[in-house]
């Protein structure tokens, strides 16, 4: 293995330029280093102005998502040695998000979409404390567990072309999280969420490209969640059409 590897990193300083550019850095190619280690090396030893988000460095906080050679990746989980053959790694901010500075993207849009699907347990009536906790069997847990693994890293948004093409599309993670609550036996908010999701863009912008599931580091399968929800929303529409008097 060579001693060093070249990183081509996006630099963007709104005070100084109108468009991002690429800057090259030579970093040590250590067997156990990930891209995040390389970025921190640059910031500590080479160029302190490089700006990027990171936190747990172990793949659970979801902060360090970036495009690595065109693929959305968690930089704390992407080894430099995987790219040793090419000798160069291009590190860019997540696709389809506005760039604030260097590798930092603005996530307000995603946060708004996530909040709109009400990702929390909604109860029509709360049980009184005296009745004890809400019990759930392992089978009931299994219905939504996969979708609960989401760490909001938004790699799926960077993978989904519809996110880039259709600003109204709620997006993979938000829909998967809506499903996480819809399928939770303790939740009673499915109809409330349907009002948001079943709007024209909501979920219907999705054309099942499937790249979101490929990009997900936590195996959430948002594409599956969305298709299942299309079926749910359709059955709900049919039910309300055939039986409009039915209670919610």
């Amino acid at each position, binding site marked *: 293995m060579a001693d060093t590897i070249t990183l081509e990193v996006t630099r963007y300083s709104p005070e100084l330029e109108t468009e991002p550019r690429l800057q090259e850095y030579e970093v040590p190619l250590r067997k156990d280093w990930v891209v995040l280690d390389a970025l921190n090396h640059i910031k500590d030893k080479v160029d302190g102005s490089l700006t990027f988000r990171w936190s747990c460095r172990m793949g659970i906080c979801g902060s360090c998502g970036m495009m690595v050679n065109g693929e959305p990746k968690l930089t704390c989980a992407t080894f430099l040695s995987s790219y040793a053959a090419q000798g160069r790694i291009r590190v860019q901010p997540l696709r389809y998000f506005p760039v604030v500075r260097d590798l930092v993207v603005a996530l307000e849009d995603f946060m708004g979409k996530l909040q709109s699907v009400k990702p929390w347990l909604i109860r029509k009536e709360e049980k009184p404390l005296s009745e004890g906790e809400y019990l759930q069997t392992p089978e009931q847990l299994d219905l939504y567990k996969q979708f609960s693994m989401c760490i909001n890293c938004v790699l799926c948004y960077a993978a989904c*072309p*519809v996110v880039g*093409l*259709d600003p109204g599309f709620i997006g993979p993670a938000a829909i998967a999280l809506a499903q996480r609550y819809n399928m939770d036996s303790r939740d009673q908010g499915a109809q409330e969420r*349907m*009002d948001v999701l*079943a*709007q*024209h863009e*909501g979920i*219907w912008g999705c*054309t099942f490209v499937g790249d979101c599931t490929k990009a997900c580091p936590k195996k959430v399968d948002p594409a599956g969640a969305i298709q299942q929800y*299309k079926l749910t*929303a*359709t059955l709900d*529409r*049919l039910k*309300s059409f055939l039986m409009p008097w039915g209670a919610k």
Partner: protein
Amino acid sequence: MAKRSNEPILWVLFSAGGVVAAFLIPVLLFLLFLAFPLGWIESPSYTGLLGLVRLPITRVVLFILCFFSLFHWAHRFRYTLYDGLQIKHLNQLIFPFCYGGALVGSVLAGYILWNMG
């Protein structure tokens, strides 16, 4: 409730069309439009084929095939125009072109199948 979109209906038509098209079109296209005319497989006689098509069950199956396949195309093509060519702003033209076209094609199919003599 009122502001829920009508996408589910269009999506169901698309899905049904996808299923019907997947099961029936490959074999029909291969036999009717390649194997028979090019002589790879001996084609049925004119009278035999006409007799087969005239059966009520055949006409119904073919109509279902045409109707759902056309609506499958309409839905998929509409989104291809939105996303592929990024012309969603032309929705006023795209929507009627796609679903209107599917409807016209279906009526035409119905007419032809009804009048197979």
